[in-house]
Each structure stands twice: as structure tokens, then as C-alpha cells.
């Protein structure tokens, strides 16, 4: 009795996760099963076919294993039948995997062809450069440079030119497209068109998917899919040059910022700050996060970050810990200034 009950329980245990897999929460921010672009749709189409086949094979083989284990369990009077093989059966179970593999291969090949078409002419082109550990984005033809957060329009193709400045990274926004690596010395291209109805105020989350050193886990980014109108407005706002300080406090912050070593690495358009080592800060106030998506963009986080970036994001050594060079008031003043760069 025990022998029968055990395997049955095993079967149930094996099946439950399978159901859970099918229903894997589509609401998760980085889910791969809720596609919102043509590229992601293509991938998901193949995935669904293959998953169904895989589930069938999984259940069939496991059921067969259990049935054989139960039926041919030793018991009094049973003698094992002595035979060495059966050519007909061998042929049959060569054909079964061949058939399954063929069924997987056809949509695969079609999807490979679909996802390697050249981008349409009206695509927006964004050059992506991977750095340890943040993403730099340059909208070609606009002079617009930003970091870790981008906006793209719904219903129109965006093409990403993927490069790296140091080690290999990988560009991945699961709901919008499969990942493509950023490899130093190479340039890869990825393009997709978000669905017309993919526009939403919340960002689509992305993350570096190739191990790239100490803070690999902290190399995240956000893609906002806007309506075409919102997108145009955003581009226009981001192209604006120097945002004049609105009050005395931010004016003091600007002076402090421009007289500090910040300008050696960061750019703020229209000012003397023209460094190109760190992220462009021209419109940092308009972003929702800092430090490649690991901290909210607010006064308190900015102060913490400027005080000691290595403490917030291990391995960030190019940017010094300003707590040893400035007072907390000075740092707060710079934070206020940066937040004003909308």
C-alpha cells in the first residue's frame, strides 16, 4: 500500500508546480510572460508552443516512470522477463523526439528571422553604452544624453545600438524584448515596437543580465513607454539647456557644484560642467531614481549618495565620498540644486 501511495503523492507534487508555472504571476515587474512589444510577442509565441510540448513530455515521462515502478515492483511469484531490446520500439522512440524537436524548430527558425529584420527607417535610435555599473543613453540626432532612465513612444519602433565602455553587460527589459549583450569592441543592435496600448505612467523595469563585476546586481534601468504626445513633450523638455536656478538656495548649490570636482566627471548642459565619465546630470531632477535604479530620487537619497556612493553601491570608486570633503550642509545644497534640474 505504502508503495502505491508514495508515487501518487509524488505525481501530485510534481504536477502542482507545473500549474503554478503556467500561471506564473504576470503582474511581476520583470515577468517574461506578459509581452508588451512585437519582439516580446514573437518570443512569447514560441515560448507558449514549446512550454505546452514540454509539459506534455514532462507528464508523460514522469507518469511512465511511476507506472513502471509500481507495476513491475517485485512481488512473490514474479519473474523478470529476459529480453534485450526491440528494434521496432527503438525506431518509434527515435521518431518521437525527432517529431517534437521538429515542431519546436519550425517556429524557432521563423522567430529568428522575424527578430533579425532591420529596423524600420522611422525608428528612433538610441545608442546605449554600458558602464560599470550604469547605462548611458544617447538619443541620436537630438544631442540628448541621459542615464538609467529612458522614454520611448508607444506604437513606434525604437532601435538600440548596444556598446560597452568596459566589460560585457546585457540590455534586458523582459516585457519589451529579450536580452542582447553589450560587448566592448562590438556593436549589437536591438529594436522593437511597443504596443500602441503599452503606454503607461509606470516604468518597465530592466536590469543588466550579464555578470559585470562587483555591483552587477545594482545595474538596473527603467524604460517609460509614453504616448506619442507625451514622448514629444519629454524630448523637448530634455533638450532644454541650462535650467536657471529658481531661488537663492539652488543658486548657491549650482555655484558649489560648479566649483567642486563634480564637473570633472559630470555634464550639466549650458554650464562649465562637461565631464563625460559619469552620468549626464542635465535633467537629473526629472528622473525617478538615482544610482542606476537602486535609490529613489529624493533629497535624502541624493545626500546619502553624494556623501559616500561606495557605501550605497559597492565598487563605485570613481566618484569620491564627498562627506570627507564637504559639510553635510554643502552636500544638501548640491542635492537641492540637482533636484531642481527638471
Amino acid at each position, binding site marked *: 500500500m505504502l508503495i502505491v501511495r508514495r508515487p501518487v503523492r509524488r505525481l501530485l507534487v510534481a504536477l502542482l508546480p507545473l500549474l503554478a508555472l503556467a500561471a506564473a504571476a504576470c503582474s*511581476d515587474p520583470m515577468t517574461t510572460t506578459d509581452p508588451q512589444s512585437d519582439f516580446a510577442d514573437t518570443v512569447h509565441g514560441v515560448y507558449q508552443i514549446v512550454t505546452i510540448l514540454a509539459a506534455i513530455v514532462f507528464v508523460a515521462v514522469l507518469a511512465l516512470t511511476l507506472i513502471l515502478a509500481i507495476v513491475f515492483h517485485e512481488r512473490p511469484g514474479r519473474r523478470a522477463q529476459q529480453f534485450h531490446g526491440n528494434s521496432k520500439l527503438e525506431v518509434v522512440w527515435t521518431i518521437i523526439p525527432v517529431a517534437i524537436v521538429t515542431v519546436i524548430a519550425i517556429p524557432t527558425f521563423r522567430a529568428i528571422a522575424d527578430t533579425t529584420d532591420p529596423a524600420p527607417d522611422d525608428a528612433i535610435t538610441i545608442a546605449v553604452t554600458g558602464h560599470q555599473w550604469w547605462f548611458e543613453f544617447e538619443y541620436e540626432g537630438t544631442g540628448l544624453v541621459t542615464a538609467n532612465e529612458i522614454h520611448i513612444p508607444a506604437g513606434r519602433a525604437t532601435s538600440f545600438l548596444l556598446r560597452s565602455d568596459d566589460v560585457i553587460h546585457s540590455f534586458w527589459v523582459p516585457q519589451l524584448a529579450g536580452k542582447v549583450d553589450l560587448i566592448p569592441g562590438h556593436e549589437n543592435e536591438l529594436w522593437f515596437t511597443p504596443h500602441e496600448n503599452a503606454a503607461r505612467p509606470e516604468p518597465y523595469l530592466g*536590469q543588466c543580465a550579464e555578470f559585470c563585476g562587483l555591483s552587477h546586481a545594482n545595474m538596473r534601468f527603467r524604460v517609460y513607454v509614453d504616448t506619442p504626445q507625451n514622448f514629444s513633450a519629454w524630448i523637448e523638455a530634455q533638450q532644454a539647456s541650462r535650467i536657471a536656478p529658481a531661488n537663492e538656495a539652488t543658486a548657491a548649490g549650482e555655484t558649489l557644484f560648479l566649483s567642486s570636482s563634480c564637473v570633472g566627471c559630470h555634464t550639466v548642459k549650458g554650464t562649465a560642467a562637461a565631464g563625460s565619465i559619469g552620468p549626464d546630470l542635465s535633467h537629473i531632477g526629472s528622473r525617478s531614481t538615482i544610482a542606476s535604479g537602486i535609490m529613489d530620487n529624493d533629497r535624502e537619497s541624493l545626500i546619502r549618495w553624494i556623501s559616500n556612493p561606495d557605501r550605497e553601491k559597492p565598487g563605485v570608486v570613481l566618484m569620491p565620498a564627498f562627506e570627507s570633503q564637504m559639510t553635510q550642509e554643502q552636500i544638501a545644497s548640491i542635492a537641492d540644486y540637482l533636484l531642481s534640474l527638471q
Partner: protein
Amino acid sequence: MATAVETLAPPATQSGIWSWITTIDHKRIGALYAITGFIFFLVGGVEALLIRAQLAVPNGDVIDPELFNQLFGVHALTMIFLAVMPMGAGFFNYMIPLMIGARDVAFPRLNALSYWIFLGGALLLTSSFIFGGAPDAGWFAYAPLTSEQFSPGRNMDFYVLGILMLGVSSMAAALNFAVTIINMRAPGMSLLRMPVFVWMTLIISALLILALPPLTVALLQLLFDRHYETSFLSPGGGGDPLLWQHLFWVFGHPEVYILILPAMGIVSETLPVFSRKPLFGYSAIVFSGMAIAFLGWAVWSHHMYTTGLGPVQKSIFAGTTMTIGVPTGIKIFNWLATMYGGSIRFTTSMYFAVAFIALFTIGGISGVMHASPPIDTQQQDTYWIVAHIHYVLVGGALMGIFSGIYYWFPKMTGRFLGEGLGQVHFWLMFIGINLTFFPMHFLGTAGMPRRIYTYDSGMGWDFWNMVATIGALVIGVSLLVFIANFFRAMGQKPTAPNNPWDAATLEWATTSPPPEHDFDLIPIVRGRDPLWFDRDHGHAPAAAPDSAVHIHLPPPSYYPMMMAVGVLLLAVGPMTHLVLTAFGAVVIAYSVWGWALEPTD
């Protein structure tokens, strides 16, 4: 005759530690491999538990990121090179000569050398934790993260030199076993009468012999880039980081089969014995093993689908990769058919063998899924792949190894592992594996990247990470049960008869444990399952030979150990001072000289 002036006198003692250091007996070397491998398996397990502890909850704070990044890479290196391969090597050292009816391997001293170099490489690699930091760029060590510029510490030097040493060891072992299997078979044992485990070992040897050179070249390029000013792999100097990926995976993919084929060989032994009937489709299993190994050479770029391969390359590598599913499927069906019509004894070994089929199938299915490049763009570098490799390597390779341990333990020690504790071990391990690794499919589907030391809450990853950590603890407990079982068994009197399972292969024709010379009389093989053939056809076991006949065995030797020390010195040179390398070369030269002149009769 060599004189004492030219070489050291042969070691005299036959017991104590010295006898283990100088042993060239394949059974003792096998035991050394197996025990060392198991100890490193526990080390790798502790590394895994630390990783799981860190990831149990979002924003975990158990270990710092430096250590985490070292642990996930070293966990892989430890499990692959220091645990699963040596445990496999333990079996084929111990069993291959017995299974083919030989008195030892073709080159007993070379065999000892393989072990000692392996031990040196393993200690070198592991000692990195003490000396300034373990390799922290993953086991795949993608350039240019590994360059002097991005990895200025010693970390990657330990990787390069440790793996080079382990490669030398594996190469020596593979050459030895290829020759042993081709040349040392007992009379009557034609190639197609060899047990499947022997076949798989031969195939693994061939894979190692051909796959290690590309890895060696890649490692040398990395070594030269780091220390001798070349830039093979750094784009700054005109190099190409993808060169590393190609060379590494030309080795790395066959390596996967090097890890899984021993397990396939083991269950091909245990399934028939415990089903009390011959293996179904012997030739199909052997030839599909060869097909897997052959195709394994044409699939390496499926690790590189996201690097920007062209559509034609993607399609070709997708095609070859999916094709591997066919011989794998054939194997699975043949194992199932072996159970059909049997009278199955559910010993612990059999439980592990049946679980192997089930769990390996899961790993195989998920493998075919991301053989499709479009799907892989969503699964590559996520926990989906972590789930896949662990179903293949833990659910597959490790379950096979445990099936072998329970099966051959009486042959190796004369004692039985307890069946009661064995069942507890099995069920805990079976549950633990599924609890740990099945949820990783969900994590991957929910977009959790691999190799991240931290993650935020609200990504939908919290629950399954906690489940996986609990599962890892269950696996840990199951291993404690196994260790208890081992010591309990070793405390008992040896009672095992020659052939306790009524098995068919030659290792069961001699005593348990076998005498130092393996067989009093070299057996004669009359069929594919020799002991069953003799039983069914009324051939009595050969009479015990005249006890006056002296079976001469080669004397023990310390040159293998000495040469391994030389190799270790050679390896640590580039990391410290090249004087050590020169000194190592002298030690090696001396050992070769002594080795060559040492009398072997």
C-alpha cells in the same frame, strides 16, 4: 638495473599514510579520488548554502557582495572540477579495471600522478579564499572582466593556474583510461560486450582529450594578457572578448557531458541489476552516448545566443542543440524499457536511479526549451538556467553518483550502507532538490537574473527564493544522514559476499573488497553480461588458482607525488616569483628521470 645513486630506493612500507602517498593501486587511488571529491562536494555545498542564505530574503545582509561574487563562481568550479568530476573519477579508477577484468590501469603511476596533481590544483584553487580572494568573475570568467585592468587582484590568477593544473590532471587520467579500456580488456570482452559504464568512461576520456586543449589555450591567453602584456581578449589592445567565449564553450559544452555521462553509465548498470533483467537496447544506449558526445562539439555557441550572432549561426546552433534531444530521448526510453517486465527491487540505489531518470528528464526538457534562441533571449542568465543546470547536474549527475555509491559500496568496503538510513537520505534529498530547484523556474520566468547578490522586494521573487533556501537546507540535512550512514556502515564487520546484488559485471566476480591484484585468475568473458551468461549457461566460476602462484604487482612509488609537487611549484610561479617555476621544472625533471629508471617489476 637502476642503482641507488641514480634513483631513490623504492618505498618499503605498505601501511600507514606513507603507503597511501606512494600507492599506485587503482582501488586506493579511486578511494582517494572519491573521498577527496566528497569532501570538496561538502565545501561546495557550504558555499551554496551561504549563497542561498544571502538570497533567502530581499536585500539580504548575510554576506557582503565581494564574498558573494566569489562564492557563486567558486561554488561552480568546486562542484564541477573538485566534486562531480573526481567522484566520477573515483568510480572509474576503482571500477574500470575490475569491470574489464584487468589487474590495474595501463599506467598505474600516471594514475597516481593524476590524483596528486588534481589535489594540488584543488588546494591551490580553494586556498585563494585565504590568500587574498577567490576568483570573482564566475566559472565562465568572461573577458574582459578578468583582465588585469578590471580584476587587478590575485583572484583570477588562482582561477587560471588552478584550472590549468586540474586540466593537466584530467588529461593524464583521460589518456590513461582511454588506453586502459582500449587495451586491457579481459579475453572475450569485445567492445560491444563492455558494460555501459565502461563505454561512457571511454567516451568521457575522448571528450576530455579533445576538449581540454582549447581551454588550455584560452587560459594561456588569459595568463599572457594578465602578466605578459598581450591583449588577446581585451578590445583596448585590439583583442576580442568573444574569442574567450568561443574557446571556453568549445570546452565548456563537452564538459557538461563529461559530468553527466558517468551518471548515465552508472544507472545503465544499476537499473538492469535491480530490475533483474538485461539492459534494454544496449547498442542504442551506447551509440546514443556517442552521438551525444559527437554533437556536443557542434553546439557551443548556444551559450552565446545573446552576443549578437547572425540569424544563420543562431539557426544552425539551435538545430544542432535540439538534435541532442533525440539521442537523449532514446536513452531515457531505453532505461524505462529496462524496467518494463522486470521484478524491481527498490533498494536505495534503485531509488536514486529511478529519480535520476525523472529529474534528468526535467533538466533535459528545460534544456531543449532554451535551445530555441528566441526563448533563450528571455531565459539566458536568469534563474531559469540555474534551474536547468541543477536539474541536470544535481538531479542527473549527482543522483547517478549516489546510485553508484549505494550499489558499489559493498564491493569497495565489504560492508553495506544501511537501507533504512539510505531511504531517509534519498527522500530528503529528492524533496530537497525539487524544493530548491523547481522554484527557480518560476524565478527565471519572473525575470530574476543570475549572479545578483541582492534584489528588491516587490519583484515577485521573495516567496520562491525563500522556498529554494529551505530546499537547500533539506539537501544539507540529507547529506548529514548520508554521512551518518557511511560511518555507521564503516563501523560494522565486513560481511558482503562477492555478488550481493546478483549483478552481471566482472567486478562482482572477485571478493568484496577485491584483493590487491583484483582477480586471482583473469576472468574469461563469454557474453555481454558475463556473470549472468555463465550462470545461465552453467559455466562454473573458475577454480581458485594454486596459492603458490605469485601475482607480481608493480611496487609503490613516490615519484608521482613528487612530480605533482613540481607541477604545483610550476603553477604558483607566475603568481609569485618565476624562480618557483624554475624550481618546479627542476623537480619535475628529476621526477621524470627517477620515474623512468624506477624498476616496475
